[in-house]
């Protein structure tokens, strides 16, 4: 009833190609941003900020990065966590070698290094595709994890291999409490989300989608495959690297290779698939789902059993429920939460009438 574009005429190509073509979408976006920047900080407590919202935002950014690669450009990657690790370690190393560098510059450097590594491991994508490519990215995952564990130079010869992240200050303000961390991560994520959304509707984004749908056909109509695929790897890894730096600096407070193992890669792939391939909102929905589901299961488990069953058993049941949930979800809606959201919007256009 309220959500319909009747009367909103697009009189130029520019209007037709706008990021948010419908007026109500613009209002909704502004409302959501206001909600995130003002309402949440006012009401959320430290637990919510530090252990749910900040990790959620950091992993959403990684999911956004993977979504560029897998959702838009159609290249499967199982090495997301490795690119995150590159981002984290590169920014840490820059700060260690050049202490006066501001941390935001270090984060950017981390993203750029990750992009470089991503392009390097994306080179095989020119020749191989599908699952074969997934294995190439697995090589990245294991190799990079090994590199950071075995070469002390990367960890600055720290004896334990676990390093405390350097403190962050922005314009003289120390970013050390959950609220300031939340603002930092939120700002970066919002900028990146708009960046991706914008990129996706540009010539580059359309080229990515053409390659995803059929790369030979895309090549035949004159899209440079090498440039397109490597750019997708670069942009994706840049975002993943940034997310990795955030994950290490803001969420964990330590820089360690163990935080970026293969389980993390799978987690992010799940976020992308469950959220919806090829959509920006999907990355956020998927990340929310994957963060909240284990917490929910955990609380539910201890609530139902009341602590009568050993925690080990509960952990196993959680595993089962988690697996079953994912299968169930893929069967019910293989196109992900973003698709459900879209269907909901379609319904809303007509509501309260059937058609």
């Amino acid at each position: 009833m309220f959500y319909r574009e009747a009367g909103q005429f697009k009189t130029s190509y520019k209007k037709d190609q706008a990021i948010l073509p419908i007026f109500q979408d613009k209002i909704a976006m502004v409302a959501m941003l206001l909600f995130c920047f003002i309402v949440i900080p006012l009401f959320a407590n430290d637990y919510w900020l530090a252990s749910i919202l900040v990790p959620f935002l950091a992993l959403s950014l990684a999911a956004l990065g993977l979504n560029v690669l897998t959702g838009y450009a159609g290249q499967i990657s199982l090495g997301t966590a490795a690119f995150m690790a590159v981002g984290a370690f590169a920014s840490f190393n820059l700060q260690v070698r050049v202490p006066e560098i501001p941390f935001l510059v270090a984060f950017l450097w981390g993203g750029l290094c990750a992009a470089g590594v991503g392009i390097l491991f994306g080179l095989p994508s020119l020749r191989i595709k599908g699952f074969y490519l997934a294995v190439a990215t697995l090589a990245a995952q294991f190799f990079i994890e090994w590199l950071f564990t075995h070469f002390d130079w990367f960890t600055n010869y720290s004896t334990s291999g676990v390093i405390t992240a350097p403190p962050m200050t922005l314009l003289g303000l120390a970013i050390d409490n959950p609220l300031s961390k939340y603002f930092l991560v939120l700002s970066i994520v919002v900028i990146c989300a708009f960046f991706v959304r914008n990129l996706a509707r540009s010539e580059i984004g359309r080229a990515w989608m053409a390659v995803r749908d059929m790369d030979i056909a895309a090549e035949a109509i004159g899209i440079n495959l090498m440039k397109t695929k490597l750019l997708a790897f670069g942009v994706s890894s840049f975002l993943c690297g940034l997310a990795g730096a955030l994950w290490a600096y803001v969420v964990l407070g330590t820089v360690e290779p163990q935080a970026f193992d293969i389980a993390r890669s799978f987690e992010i792939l799940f976020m992308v698939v469950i959220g919806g391939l090829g959509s920006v909102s999907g990355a956020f929905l998927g990340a929310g789902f994957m963060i909240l589901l284990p917490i929910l299961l955990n609380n539910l488990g201890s609530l139902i059993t009341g602590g009568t069953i050993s925690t080990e058993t509960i952990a196993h049941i959680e595993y089962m429920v988690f697996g079953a949930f994912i299968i169930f979800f893929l069967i019910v809606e293989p196109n992900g939460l973003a698709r459900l959201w879209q269907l909901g919007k379609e319904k809303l256009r007509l509501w309260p009438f059937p058609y």
Partner: protein
Amino acid sequence: MDWWFFLEVFVGGLLSGVMYSLVALGFVLIFKASGVFNFAQGAMVLFAALTFVRLLEMGIPMLVAVGVTMAIMVILAIAIERIVLRPLVNQDLIILFMATIGLNYFIEGMAQLVWDSKVHVLDLGIDEYDAFEIGEAFINKFDVYAALIAGGLVLVLSLFFRYTVIGRALRAVADDHQAALSVGIPLRTIWIYVWSTAGIVAMVAGVVWGSKLGVQFAISSVALKAIPVLIIGGFTSVPGAILGGLIVGCGEKLAEVYLGGFVGGAIENWFPYMLALLVLMIRPEGIFGEKIIERV
């Protein structure tokens, strides 16, 4: 260079490669027949091994335990076909792949819930440290037996594929789903057969791995090692899986011994993947894989 030592490492690598082949075999069977890259194969190996070892611990004779475990794997296969695969027919490869990762979580949880998550010793009556001596090289007897078991399994499988009606139907399905359907081969039944066979192969792999390393959670991670094996051999080829396993086994052991020292060791973890990457650069469909022909 000490050639006897080289030989020892080489043969040791070959024999451990046989184990990778066993796991990879399960992948290939399922991929050929249903086009699903079954990530849950590792969990199936764990589940089968745990079932077997717990049955033995209950005092059930070995042959009966084998039979019961096989029956359970068949039931599991039927359940997977019914509950997971059937509703997902015609979905994208990546969706099916994600579903098998979900399945992987489920089976891992189930295996440890129904049985338990302790390390179990599985004793098949073979001494693990006994070795043959060839010249100056020592060859582990246990590994040789494992290789013989794997070889026997491959032989039985290839005879089964070649000479039985079901085997022929399986090959037809692997060649072309639609053509197979149109000559009256029931696809769903075939899938159950394939998943059952993969389950039984998983059992053999689990028992062999389990008696070498102890039956424990870590077994399920061999699935990750099987992936480069598949790449090198090709996703669709049974002999490819065997050869790929041997190449990976040898390659990683030799690399660890002769190159590992220079770069800080533990290169076993990523070496197979890099090897696979190299193979892919030269031959994108693997050594034995079917040539990929693409049309617009």
